[in-house]
Structures are given as C-alpha cells and as structure tokens.
C-alpha cells in the first residue's frame, strides 16, 4: 500500500498543482428594464453585482420619477406648471440644473435645458407631432434662454412661461450616478446601456476594453467601433427621433436659437469622455454647432473625443481616437478625416 502511495503521490500532487491554475470566471449579472423612455441593460461582474445593480435600478427609477417631463407627479412637471416663478428644488434636481446651466453657458446655449416650450410644441415629448408656424415660434422663442434661469442654491427663479426639460442630459447623468454607485459597491467591471447612452467601469473581466459600436444612421448596422475603459460613449443623431410631414423630415435636435431642428450638416455626433452627463449634453450641443464650430469647441477644451458623421458621408474624428476608431467591414471604404 505504501509503495502504491509513493508511486501515485507525485502524480496526484502534479494534478493538484495543475488545478491551481483554474480560476472560475467572475459571475456576470444583468439587469434589464424600461425607464427614461428607453430600454436599459446593465451588466456588472463580481459577487457584489446583484445587490449593486438593484441599487442602480432603484436610483434610475427614482430619477425618472423626478425628471419625467410628461409625468404629472414629477418634480420637473411641477416646476413647469408652477404657480409662482420662484420654486424650491430638491437637491438632486438643483444639482442637475446647476450642471445643465453650466453646460449651457459653456456651449453658448447650443445645449439649453430651457428649450422645452419649443420641443413640446414640435411634439417630440408627446408624440403629437406638429410643425410650429413662424408666428408660433416667434411667441415661443422669448421663453427659451438659460440666461433667464437664476439658480441660487436650491432656489430657482424663472421668467414667466419658461419650462425645463433634462432630456438631453438625464440619461448621461443617471449613468454617472450609476457608475459612482457601482464603484462604491466594489464593482470594477461593468457596462451600462441606457438606450444608446453607454457608460463603462474598468475593463471587461479579462482585462480587454469594452467594444462600443457606433450606429450607422441609415439602419441598425454598426458603422465603427471604439474600445473604451472607464469612459462614456453617447451619440446624438437626427435619425433617433423624427417625423415626416408633407414630405419634409423634422428631427428632435432643436437649435435653441431658431426653434427649429438644427440644420448643421451633421447626421450624428458621438462624444467619448469620462462623464456621461457631459458627453450627453455635448453630443447635442456639437450637433447644433456643426462640424466647424464643434471642432473649434473641441480644440478649446480637448477633454473629450468626438466622431462627427456628416450628411455628405464624411466621418471626422478627433486625434485621440486615431487608432481606436475601427470601421466595420461593410463600411471599410468610408473616408475618415482627423481633426487637427
């Protein structure tokens, strides 16, 4: 018996040593639900993931209850149907408004959370699509303007008739809060999809970056991919929400200056950066600005990367994406220009 053990011993030991190389794959947890008028799919890894994702889901639903502009019980609805022009805000809405007004100033109003009277008249939040007449627009445009919103702490004063809508920043902001919450709960690998607003934490469990596809405006194909870690990727495009009336197409990215869909020569703008809220707001702002002004804005800030898809088919990227912007096979013949 002892002779058997002496012969087998080394072999068994060898097997045991081999098996120490085996490591179980980290547990993947998914959470999928509808909120903020979009389909949300969150993926996180690790033993903390189930409870961490539950907290995130709760926060997103809470934010929706605060911000939904058509929900009669939301805080934003109450602000927009206020009795007096000075209102007390919750700290969360005050934070978001402060962030939004700062971005409005930075983009000279190309992103503006006060453009709602116009957006609502076009029907983009209600589905009741309508093309405002020049007279209607003339009456609505004076109600738009971030400069007429005075925020002091949690006290907001608006001009008569002004209304707020955070549709251009809410998902990005929710993504930032979600990422912060997940990190605080020990999650080091996650990807959050709030519709087309993508937020990532760390890399994939195997250490490789997350591959995010940028959509071809013509259909659901992936035009190109960018590889990211700890960054958000947000696209604003004219194809996302639009309607046709008398043969003319109208999209939802309203130029706050004209009150009409921005006609800047672009079909979409994708922003890549550390903050989902900033990426979200800038994707709208730079769409309104167009390639030239948007490119200039990037040069003045350089704290994000961008992809501009123009109506004429040109693709323009910022230098930080060179080498990280890969056209898919079906689009490999497309021209990609790099901003200086």
């Amino acid at each position, binding site marked *: 018996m002892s*002779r*058997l053990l002496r*012969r*087998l011993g080394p*072999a*068994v030991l060898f*097997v045991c040593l*081999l098996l120490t190389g085996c490591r179980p794959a980290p547990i993947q947890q998914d959470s*999928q*639900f*509808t909120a903020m*008028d*979009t*389909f949300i*799919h969150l993926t996180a890894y690790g033993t903390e993931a189930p409870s961490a994702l539950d907290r995130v889901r709760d926060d997103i639903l809470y934010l929706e209850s605060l911000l939904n502009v058509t929900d009669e019980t939301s805080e934003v609805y109450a602000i927009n149907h206020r009795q007096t022009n000075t209102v007390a805000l919750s700290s969360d809405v005050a934070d978001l408004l402060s962030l939004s007004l700062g971005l409005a100033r930075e983009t000279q109003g190309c992103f503006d959370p006060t453009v709602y009277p116009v957006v609502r008249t076009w029907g983009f939040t209600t*589905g009741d699509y309508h093309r405002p007449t020049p007279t209607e627009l003339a009456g609505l445009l004076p109600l738009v303007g971030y400069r007429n919103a005075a925020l002091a702490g949690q006290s907001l004063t608006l001009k008569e008739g002004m209304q707020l809508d955070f549709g251009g920043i809410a998902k990005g902001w929710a993504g930032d809060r979600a990422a912060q919450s997940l990190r605080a709960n020990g999650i080091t690998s996650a*990807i959050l*999809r709030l519709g*087309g*607003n*993508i937020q990532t934490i760390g890399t*994939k469990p195997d250490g490789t970056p*997350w*591959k*995010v*596809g*940028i*959509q071809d*405006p013509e*259909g*659901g*194909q*992936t035009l190109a*991919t960018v590889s990211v870690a700890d960054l958000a*990727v*947000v*696209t604003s*495009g004219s*194809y*996302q*929400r639009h*309607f046709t009336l008398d043969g003319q197409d109208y999209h939802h990215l309203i130029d706050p200056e004209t009150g009409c869909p921005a006609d800047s020569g672009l079909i*979409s703008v*994708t922003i890549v950066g550390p903050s989902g809220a900033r990426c979200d707001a800038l994707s709208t702002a730079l769409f309104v600005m167009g390639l030239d002004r948007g490119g200039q804005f990037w040069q003045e800030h350089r704290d994000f990367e961008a992809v501009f898809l123009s109506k004429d088919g040109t693709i323009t990227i910022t230098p930080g994406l060179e080498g990280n912007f890969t056209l*898919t096979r079906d689009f490999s013949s497309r021209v990609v220009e790099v901003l200086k």
Partner: protein
Amino acid sequence: MKSNQFWVWILAALLLLCSLWAALLPLLGKAGAAAEIRQDGMLLRTVALDKPQEFTVDSPNGGSNTVCVRDGRICVSAATCPDQVCVRQGWVGSSGTPIVCLPNGLVIQIKGGEQDIDAAAG
C-alpha cells in the same frame, strides 16, 4: 510493482483526456446564434437564426410586431407602433445591438454566436 504502474498509467491517461477535453471544449461548444424575444421583460421564445422564418408577436396593448429571420439575422419588418423605431433598426446579426419596440414592450436580443460589440451607442 505492476499494479502500481497500472494505476499511474490510468491516472496519466485520465489527465491526458481531461487536458484534451479542456482544449477542445471552446472549439466544440460554440452554439449557433439564437435570438431571445421578450415581451415586457418576460421571455416569450428563443428563435434559432439558422433557418428562415417569420412570425408575429402580439402585445397586450393591442399592438403587434412582425419578426423575420433570414441568413443568421433578425429584424422587425412591420409594427403597429407610431414611430417605427424597431422597423428602422433593420437587420441585426450579432449580440450587442438589441431591437427594441418600447410602445409594444418588445425586446429582441441575440445570444451566442459572434459577439462583435459589447454595446451600441446611438
């Protein structure tokens, strides 16, 4: 002596088989792509993408979406929703890009097969 050697050989053979199994498993285990069809979060059916088919999914609100499968891809060819976002999505052939019809509560996601992207922006 002989019986000891016998057991060592058995162990070695087992080890070899296990190694081969572990090595071949990734190659053998690649299941064909399939699409999961969900209605308001509930899994309705899983559809293999290897043979052409067409079917309609009715939603509790009285709406419907017509789903087509062809050449390993899936699309919504017709729908009763007002904005037709699901129809405009076109053919989808890989996981990472879901087809979503919010008004009708429909979500189509491809599982297995090629995962070329982790998420779709836009």
